[in-house]
């Protein structure tokens, strides 16, 4: 993928929003890839977790279109392993929040199998709705 890097993008409002909402320093990540190596849901992602951080570092708002930010289940495996102490689930949450606050909604209950909906435990419904709908 070709992209243009510019000072304006590196210091854009998007980068500031991600850092402010997450409370994390994007440039602390040195792209070692340990998060992607250990991520249990990486196989279902269109972009690896470390690539999501790289795009956010570079101010590439296209990252908001990635499925990865919605597939991350905040299991915190990467937090336990990041040698730089980056809390990646907080960055993922910031990207989800930016999407949700602009009106996105990520659950389509009609697409869920009815037998599953009848059986789901309460905390999955409460937690899922808080994560994926504003």
């Amino acid at each position, binding site marked *: 993928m070709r992209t243009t890097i510019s000072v304006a993008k590196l210091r854009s409002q998007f980068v500031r929003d991600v850092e402010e909402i997450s409370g994390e320093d994007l440039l602390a990540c040195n792209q070692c890839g340990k998060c992607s190596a250990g991520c249990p849901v990486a196989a279902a992602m269109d972009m690896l977790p470390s690539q999501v951080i790289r795009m956010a570092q570079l101010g590439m708002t296209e990252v908001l279109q990635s499925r990865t930010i919605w597939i991350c289940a905040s299991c915190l495996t990467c*937090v336990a392993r990041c040698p730089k102490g980056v809390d990646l689930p907080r960055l993922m949450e910031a990207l989800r929040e930016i999407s949700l606050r602009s009106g996105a909604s990520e659950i389509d209950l009609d697409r869920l199998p009815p037998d599953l909906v009848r059986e789901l*435990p309460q905390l999955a419904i409460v937690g899922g709705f808080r994560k994926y709908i504003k």
Partner: protein
Amino acid sequence: MKIPYYPGCTLSTKAKGYDRSGRAVAAALGMELVELPDWQCCGATFPLATDNSMALIAPTRVLYQAEQAGEQVAALCAICYHVLKRTQTALERDPAMRERINWFTEQGYEGRVRVVHLLELLRDYLGWAELARRVVRPLTGLRVAPYYGCLLLRPYDEIGLDNPEAPTILHDLIRAVGAEPVDFPFSIECCGSYLTVKDPTVSETLSREIVASARAAGAQVLVTACPLCQFNLEWPQRETAFGRTGDEIPVLYFTQLMAVALGLPEEDWGIEGMYTDPYPLLRNVVQAVESV
């Protein structure tokens, strides 16, 4: 000893068996879990966005209720435990946030209460040796895979229950009840959590891998402390129009395993709403012990 207890939404509905077996084993060990009066939902997620103080209100209300009841509050649900413990830690580290929430809720949460998991009470208050001494039906020969999942362990600097990469607390419990802990590589891998309400195929894939890994390691049963893990690991093993595969592994709560070992009657095992049938296995174990 009486301990204030927060059941949470799922233990009052879908996971009643966890609540029942948890209260029964605690009582059998001299710890009475006293349900908080008028408790409300903890929110089921800890907010990861720094500007989302709204999501701290529900768990802070629970902590306030707990503070009126005593110095500590016990949880069984790993998610309630995670949310309440992290909220306790967050408000300890950020007194200004605590003030802000108190201003909103018009309740004066002071930050004195300690959130504990029943596993912690067993390890630190009762002790594994004492638990082993109380066992009347040692589960000799039963191969149990300890499944820790995520939220009971991580993040370590806020939860601090056990080593987040090489935990032992469930292993120790399994040994104390006379069974054999089975190590398997997916012991601390994610089951997909609430992805099950968005992309159920993803969580099913993860859960199938976890169960297959435990089976390959020789486990006969999995134990967990989380009602969402329990559901996610059991659901793919349900009987479908194609019948059953025949290699199901029941996923029990650690309290259910303890209820069997402590000699409690079957109704206190709290086996209900499962998609596999653990009775043949458990009754076999009981029979084997009682015929000796």
